[in-house]
């Protein structure tokens, strides 16, 4: 069963974080990275070959993260697998007790380390969520064939970018995902708090924040180089508004990271005060070790802190 679902249902402010799988074939390496977040966040997203770069598969990393004591959210993109493989992997994940699944369309292969790869995109994020809900609730595959037994207890997640054009359609797009089955939704980097508030407001007006928990994406711009990269237009879906750029470029180049963390902490405080926002999703971009510092700065670290890794047998019973 999903501890993430319980946490969100309790109404407590929830913190999730990205945890990128390692480029390598060792569960131990994965666990080492996972331990940096232990005790600090409520759940971690194991990305699925993020940015179309090959990494350890999200299901294997999710098992490693669980063994390290974290609550995993397994991501699945529609980029690399058709409907046959996606459904089969979903069943496999369910069979080992992975209940938090998050679906997205995925970045195009050209952005990754194998730009000549064949893009699949057989389903999209909406039809994939819809399929997962059908598997759980109707106990059937997309084809109508019965599942014995159906995957139970699945908690379905989605993502949305409230800031990408057409902006007026973004709440409707989120609504489609919620209708299809999304129960929680994480967003792209929130820099423009006003635009984010408009988007959440539109969902709230339709009563959708009651049906789906919204987690605002927050990340730290760590350096001038990172800022240049993020605002270059080369990272799909990421754009840094001018007023944020001016602020970060206005400080001494050595303190951009500090200013970036301050900015992120401010964003966290602002979204935390917004009705309809269930928590934040930390976009760590590989810097998991900076998470504690950010939470302290934002003043939401209360009661959180490093904990001892659980003994292996306890972790195995986590399913």
């Amino acid at each position, binding site marked *: 069963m999903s501890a993430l679902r319980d946490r969100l249902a309790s109404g407590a402010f929830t913190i999730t974080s990205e945890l990128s799988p390692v480029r390598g074939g060792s569960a131990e390496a994965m666990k080492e990275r996972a331990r940096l977040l232990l005790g600090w966040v409520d759940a971690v997203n194991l990305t699925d070959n993020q940015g179309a770069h090959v990494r350890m598969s999200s299901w294997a990393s999710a098992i490693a993260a669980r063994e390290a004591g974290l609550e995993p959210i397994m991501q699945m993109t529609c980029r690399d697998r058709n409907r046959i493989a996606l459904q089969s992997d979903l069943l496999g994940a369910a069979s080992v007790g992975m209940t938090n699944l998050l679906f997205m*369309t995925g970045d*195009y292969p050209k952005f990754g380390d194998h730009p000549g790869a064949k*893009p699949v995109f057989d389903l*999209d994020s*909406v039809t994939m969520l*819809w399929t997962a809900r059908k598997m759980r609730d109707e106990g059937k595959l997309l084809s109508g064939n019965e599942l014995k037994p159906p995957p139970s207890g699945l908690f379905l997640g989605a993502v949305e*970018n409230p800031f990408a054009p057409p902006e007026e359609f973004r709440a*409707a797009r989120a609504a489609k995902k919620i209708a299809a089955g999304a129960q929680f939704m994480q967003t792209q980097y929130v820099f423009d708090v006003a635009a984010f508030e408009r988007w959440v407001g539109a969902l709230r007006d339709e009563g959708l924040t009651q049906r789906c928990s919204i987690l605002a994406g927050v990340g730290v711009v760590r350096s001038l180089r990172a800022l240049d990269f993020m605002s270059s237009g080369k990272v799909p879906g990421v754009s840094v508004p001018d007023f944020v750029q001016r602020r970060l470029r206005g400080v001494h180049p050595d303190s951009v990271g500090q200013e970036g963390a301050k900015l992120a902490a401010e964003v966290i405080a602002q979204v935390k005060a917004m009705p309809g926002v269930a928590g934040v999703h930390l976009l760590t971009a590989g810097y998991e070790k900076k998470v504690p510092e950010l939470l302290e700065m934002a003043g939401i670290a209360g009661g959180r802190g490093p904990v001892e890794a659980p003994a292996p047998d306890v972790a195995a019973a986590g399913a």
Partner: protein
Amino acid sequence: MSSGPVHVELLPGPPADWQPGPGEPRLPRPTEPRLAPRSAYVVQRFVKPNWLNRRVGALVERLPLARRAFTVAERKSKEDLFGCRMCGQCALPVTGYSCPMGCPKELRNGPCGGVGPGGACEVYPDRRCVWVVGYERAASRGHADDLRRLQRPVDHRRFGESSWLNYWAGRDDHLWTDNDGLASPPVMGDHQ
């Protein structure tokens, strides 16, 4: 010459900035429709299934040669007007007449999160996202809500078929939900 085991070496793939060449036939590319939104919705009134085109469709379907000619005519006109890729299950009536199969990810449920600040396609930044174009066109004629319908997965067996014949014969009826899809959980139905 060394003896010993033969080493099979994999060479690196194409360079990072590799792009499919122009006119690449297999990969979809966003194409802006040439038929103005207003005209598109006027034409819709005639293409919608009615007694006349249902009968024409039934007749054409019975004659293999006529069916082929009809399909070629559809291809030629829709390729030119919409960049149609003959998926055989046309979404145009509910996408502001911007063909979603021109999206490199073939998304039929709206734009991905990668649309650039100016509305540029994530994959081909020199072109506008088909959904940015579609939303603009639909909204300009009061049809923005069409895009809220949930589209079911594409049936890849139908590529190359005439979508008009499929439309008139009722084989397209399940393609999308009503736009009340939000109220109660919409039904997916069974799809191979």
